[in-house]
């Protein structure tokens, strides 16, 4: 069966029904006493997430991009309830995640699944593949043994681990990174979730193997109508898989909108710099100077006002004093003083990307 030419996700219209509502999410990790306390000051904290608000619709495939320390992984973990936020809420189907207890929590754990970054560490080294895949069903007491094995076989078929028999009795250390990540994907699907969070799902795999996994994930997400949240620093991955993209910097969303618009016509100076920096497999393209210097500052001492202002080539006075509110420009939401609500750049200095 040839790869069906599915609609490139970046072009599909996003459905209407709201599934996940993240409002003013904040997560600070206080730094304890001792050396790190002394370095950060008594009240030091790693301000990983600083007021993130995102609305995710059912069936949407959204990518969260940004460099290390921007808070995207922490946001994903908050969504999975790996820990609790410092403030702010996450509502799934209008239910506040923070208020879920016991049974309701267990139900949530069925609907929302997480794929970790490191395929080599995502599976219990002592479980065979069969056991690893059966585990979620055993925990939730689903199905008879025959029904369980049927699901396992189906999931393995869907992730292209065939013939299934040759994988069932193997241990994780016997499989390659790509195969392991497929097992992880299959495991995530065992409970028939409707939400899938994938944290850098292919970054630890060879680039030649990534394409296969990305295609599998894309096809499965469409087939099962999953709402997927991809976390990645790799913009080309997000462009391939997502219909919406959000760019985060130091714990805030600086730009969010339809993928094609965000990547092809970036508005926020940080997004522009990020896109300019991605290496492209075309030797003729002129090498652009990176418009910004230095690296991302630590999340302990976040600059005042707009967190990007120290590195921004278009920084104005107001940028160091106030936090820009998100405005809608051409269908994309940007948090930058260079723009005012709908359409017009506030300043003639608006940077344009040479394409």
């Amino acid at each position, binding site marked *: 069966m040839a790869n069906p030419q599915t609609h490139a996700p970046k072009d599909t219209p996003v459905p209407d029904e709201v599934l996940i509502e993240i409002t003013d999410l904040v997560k600070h990790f206080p730094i304890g006493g001792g050396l790190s306390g002394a370095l950060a000051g008594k009240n030091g904290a790693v301000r990983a997430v600083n007021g993130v608000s995102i609305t995710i619709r059912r069936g949407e495939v959204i990518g969260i991009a940004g460099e290390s320390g921007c808070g995207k992984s922490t946001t994903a973990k908050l969504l999975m309830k790996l820990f609790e936020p410092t403030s702010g809420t996450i509502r799934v189907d209008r239910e506040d995640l923070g208020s879920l207890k016991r049974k309701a929590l267990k139900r949530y754990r069925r609907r929302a699944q997480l794929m970790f970054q490191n395929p080599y560490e995502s599976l219990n080294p002592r479980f065979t593949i069969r056991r690893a895949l059966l585990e979620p069903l055993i925990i939730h007491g689903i199905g008879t043994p025959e029904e369980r094995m049927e699901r396992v076989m189906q999931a393995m078929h869907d992730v292209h681990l065939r013939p299934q028999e040759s994988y069932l009795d193997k241990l994780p250390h016997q499989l390659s990174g790509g195969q392991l990540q497929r097992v992880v994907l299959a495991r995530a699907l065992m409970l028939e979730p409707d939400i899938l969070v994938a944290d850098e799902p292919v970054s630890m795999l060879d680039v030649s193997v990534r394409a296969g996994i990305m295609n599998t994930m894309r096809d499965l997400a469409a087939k099962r109508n999953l709402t997927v949240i991809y976390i990645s620093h790799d913009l080309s991955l997000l462009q391939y898989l997502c219909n919406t993209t959000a760019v985060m910097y130091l714990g805030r969303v600086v730009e969010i909108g339809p993928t094609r618009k965000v990547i092809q016509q970036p508005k926020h100076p940080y997004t522009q710099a990020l896109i300019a920096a991605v290496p492209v497999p075309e030797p003729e393209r002129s090498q652009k100077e990176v418009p910004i210097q230095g*690296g991302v500052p630590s999340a302990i001492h976040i600059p005042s006002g707009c967190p990007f202002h120290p590195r921004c080539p278009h920084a104005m006075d107001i940028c160091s004093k106030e936090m820009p509110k998100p405005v809608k420009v051409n269908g994309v939401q940007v948090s930058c003083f260079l723009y005012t609500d709908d359409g017009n750049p506030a300043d003639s200095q608006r940077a344009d990307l040479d394409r």
Partner: protein
Amino acid sequence: MTKPLLDVQDLHIHYDTDNGVMKAVEGVSFTVGAGHHLGLIGESGCGKTTAGRALMRVMPRNASIPHGKALFKGRDLVQLSEDQMRELRWRELSMVPQASMDSLNPVHRVGRQLVEVLTVRGEFSKRDALERASELFDLVGLSRDRLSHFPHEFSGGMRQRAVIALALALNPDMVIADEPVTALDVIVQRQVLQTFRQLQDRLSLSVIMITHDISVVAETCDEVAVMYAGKIVEWATVQTFFNEPVHPYTLGLQNAYPNLAKPDMELISIEGYPPNLLNPPAGCRFAPRCPFSQERCFAEEPPLVNVGPDHKAACHRADEVDMLREQAKFPATWQQSIENG
């Protein structure tokens, strides 16, 4: 044509393991001209890191070089004694190993580590060494006052640049960089790649860039050698590599890499896995995964031959390349049995 700085001829590298002899690199030949950057590209396990380390002669105890030459400035690196290699390392040939951001000693200031190399191995006086260390930091784009900082005060990208500075301390002719930007954030990655480009321009530095990412190669290299299962399957200038690839594996690779400037490109992966190098197959090592393989490919290994000016490939069907290139564009061509028993 001037003599190349590095001329590797028919290099073989074997590992002695519990399960037998693993033929990690078999008959690899390539050249690097003075001031040129060569990209050595391939997936994990293809032998590129092994080859890089072999040139520096820093291999694990169970590795050996049963055959081949590596002529560096006329001298065969394979034949040199350990003492002779030690003289050469860092002074003429140095290496930036994988994940080397973590190879800086955490308890010493970065400047001190640089000065140590300069005074101990380079016979600089303390004062000259400090001056040189400052110059090196300028060269890699780090501010001078960072010399007195400790490694943990540097970010990942800065540490990587510090390690590059260390590799350049004694002005070697060539640097072997193994996955120098893999663990770095995109913007920092760009800064480091630019640094390499600038060094090439300013110092006429030769670099062997070992990586699995063809975009990195597109940004920094002049020539590309593609390795697969211990062999070089294609060698070309960077333009030729991207515009006129010949080997089916290269054709496959180009399909598998997403391109930010081509949002509508459908990615096609190469199904299957590289062969076991303990017992490599008889014919072409790519044959089992190749959509164009024929009987001849499984029986006879294709030699690496010229297929154009400054362009070599190891494929029996190289003369049919136009047709193969056309077919390679379709996902159906690559849709072999995804089932791998």
